[in-house]
Each structure stands twice: as C-alpha cells, then as structure tokens.
C-alpha cells in the first residue's frame, strides 16, 4: 500500500541538489602537487576529508569525502566547487558563514560548518608546508 504525501523537509533546494548529486566525491592519490586535510570525528557524527591539486598559486581541483548529515554532504560538495581557483590567502581567510549562507543552513546545524572550516584551515596549512 502506498500513500501520496507531500514532501516536507528541512533542507534547502541547494542542499537537496548537492545531497542527491554530490560533485567531486573521492580523493586524489598522494602526489607532489596534492594537499590533504581531515577534520572532525566519525564517533562525533561529522568528519570531512579534503584533498586538492594545486597549480602554482591557485587550487586546480578539489575532492571531498564526508561522514555526516545531509547538510554536511552538501557543504562538502559545494565547497569542492567553491575552492577551485582559490589562493592560499583565500583559503586561510575562508569562513564557514559563506557556506551557511549559500546552503541556507538552519542555525542548529551551523556548528558543523566550523568543522568544515577547520578542514579548510588544515588544507591551507598543508599548502603552506608544500610551498
């Protein structure tokens, strides 16, 4: 037996789009131009893993893997596009608020983006060491 019901969810259309069709899932194998960063813990419900290829002063491509809620998956996917072309300084100053606004994250979920910000900062540090 099936019932026709209206879909009432707490996720923005952008979150749903990235959750359903996440971009750039995966990771780059270790290489001289690849930087990686991890933040969060699975046993605490959120973990982000970012890897990026750098080309000179900008990021050429990003891959992500995430264990987390739909907002976290969407944030990782969104970020993997957002960081393409970013410089080291842009990475260092990136704020979680940009993702929160873009994805229309509810207030109670914004704390999880701080973990994503930690991952971006760690990526910047890895880039700094590469440089």
């Amino acid at each position: 037996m099936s019932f026709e019901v209206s879909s009432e969810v707490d996720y923005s259309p952008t979150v749903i789009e990235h959750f359903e069709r996440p971009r750039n899932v995966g990771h780059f194998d270790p290489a001289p131009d690849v930087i990686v960063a991890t933040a969060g813990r699975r046993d605490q419900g959120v973990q982000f893993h970012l890897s990026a290829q750098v080309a000179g002063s900008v990021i050429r491509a990003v891959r992500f893997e995430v264990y987390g809620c739909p907002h976290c998956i969407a944030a990782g996917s969104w970020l993997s596009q957002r960081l393409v072309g970013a410089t080291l300084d842009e990475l260092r100053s990136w704020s979680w608020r940009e993702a929160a606004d873009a994805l229309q994250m509810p207030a109670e979920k914004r704390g999880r983006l701080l973990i994503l910000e930690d991952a971006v900062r760690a990526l910047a540090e890895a880039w700094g060491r590469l440089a």
Partner: protein
Amino acid sequence: MNTTIYLDYAATTPVDPRVAQRMIECLLPSGEHGNPSSAGHAFGRRARALVEKARAQVAASIGARPENIVWTSGATESDNLAILGVARFHADRGRHIVSSRTEHKAVLDALKQLEREGFEVTYLKPDSQGIVHPQQVSEALRSDTQLVSLMHVNNETGVIHDIAAVGQLCRERGVLFHVDAAQSVGKLPIDVQAQCVDLLSVTAHKAYGPKGIGALYVRRQPPIGLRPILHGGGQESGLRSGTLATHQIVGMGAAFELAAAERESDCARLRVLRDRLWQGLAAIGNVELNGHPEQRVSNVLNASFHGVEGESLQFALRELAVSAGSACSSASEEASYVLRALGRSDQLAQSSLRFSLGRFTTDAEIDIAIDAVGREVRRLRQLGNAS
C-alpha cells in the same frame, strides 16, 4: 507530491476500511449519534448498545469480561491511569515499583511523576537482545513493591516479554502487574486470566482502528484499588469521566474483533515478508539486527547500518516511511534510549531504522525497500570512504 511506501505500522496503522465504515455509520444524522449516557431516549440507548457491544469485542480479544474494560483516549492515558491510579491508591501499602528501561515514554514519564511524589522505581536493564527476564523481576521485588509494569512487546525492536511468567510470579508475591500491550494486539495472543495480568493497556490505532481511543483492562475479582486521574461525569464506574466517543469505541471494537480473527493469517504473511526484507538488508553487509532474532513479533525489523550517518540515511530513504533511531533532523540528536539500553553506541543507534510492516504491505513494496536501502547505504558509505 511523491509516492512514499508506508513501513511504519508500529507507529500507527491506517483504519481498516471495514472499520471505517462502521464508524461512519455512527456519525451521521441517520446513525447512532446519541450520547451513550442519555438513557432517557432511544438515540442514547442505541448508542449505549453499540458501546457495550464494542466493550464485549475488546474484552473477548484479550480473554476478559466486558466489565473489566475502561475506555480511555489511548495507551498513554491507559498507562497513566494504571500506574498513577494504583500507586496513589495504595501509597500507604508500599512505594516501590519495578519496571524496565525500555518501556514506552508513557510509562517512563508516569513513573518519573511518581518519583517526584516520593515513590522509588527500579528500572530493569534488558539483555543485549532487548529482553527483560522474569528472574530479573523476581530479584527486584521487595516487601514494599506494590506494582510491576512491563511492556508485552517493545515498540522499537518488537521483542516479546514473557508476561505470563512475570504475571505468575507477581501473583505469587502479591504484587500488582500492569502490561502495556499497545504493540501486541493482533500480533500475539493475549489472555489476561491465563497470563495473570491485573491491568493491561491497549490502543486502537496500532490495530487498524482509529486514533484517540484506547482501553484499560482492570481486574475486578478481587477488585483493584485505582484512583482516577480524570474527574467529571463519573462515566466508566467513575474511573474515567468524559462523554463516550461512540464512533471511536465502535471502531476499536470492530478493529479488535478483526485483529483476533485475522491474527494468525496476518502474522504468517508478514513474517515471510519481514524475513525476506531482513535477508535483503543483511546482504548489504555490516548490518546488525537489533533485538532478539526469534522472540519478537512478526512485523517489526530494527537494523543498524554501520558506516552510515543516521540523518543522511533517513533522508536518503525518504521514499520509505520508516522510523529512525534518532530524531536528528528535528535538531534533537538524542539517540534511541531503547537501543542504547541494548548496548548500542549513540552513533550506531542513530544509524538504525525500524521497518514495521502491516496488513496492507505488499511483496512489491518489500522489493522496492530492499533496493532503496541497498542503493543508498552503498552510496553513503562511498561518500564517506576515506573520511
């Protein structure tokens, strides 16, 4: 609009069309819409006759006599009336109660209220398969224990407690025994006499009857002292005041009669579907069954999915109406206290789903569910591969 497959029958069931038809007949001007307490005219007397017929139907389905049945608004009120009513009436006889950690909130919160009133409650811990054993109850009884409250079937895992054994030992020790049987009507035989039950809570909406109506079985021989929690017109021998809701009562009576008549065929069919669902889920790998594999009702399957975050799993499977081990999406991230009591970690409890099948579940729906869960669990695991 989208099509969602309903696999949440343990939360509530649709009203069986045969039941709904009986209810509608009570609502219309041409039907029995009178107040059952209006004995002075024919409308009232006819409504009263329907109420008493339904009382007999409900009583028959649990091995009771009609005069043992008190109408309530549902299992929550029945649990409250039983627990608060007995404890307050007998407060001078003893202030100790035995129950379990995996009871429904309607029982746990009533017990918390009694703790605020100076009662002491022992909450028994189930084993890793969710069972509270009669021996545990026996060992917890004290000279001042006045009540044991134990659910027949757990609402999250579907595991079955041996209420006959607990009832027997309570009877021997002179302790009153209350059973929350909200999940067992239509799934298991209930015989309050043979099972030595003194008070038993039931509700219509878990058995294809309407929401908003339930009943409490109250043993009368010898009588149990019970203090009412609602005061008013003195209906139901003063135990539950309020105008009787004829259409809902008629619906409950019809639903319970059907539940008793069709229990064996319903359960046999659902067991086959439930076992096929489990085979399909287990084939995904790293999936754990919650609750005893055999000692559980035929329509419930609760499983934990390793390596998948709970809220994402639930959202990914929104084409299936199932219950999750957490209320994550509503910002309350507390994991299921039932699954935690079984020893599951918070994380694993949150990555758990309860599938509950029912009278209208089809083979095709089970096939769709197996495909959807397999597809989404693999996808989410791949997303978090290295993280």
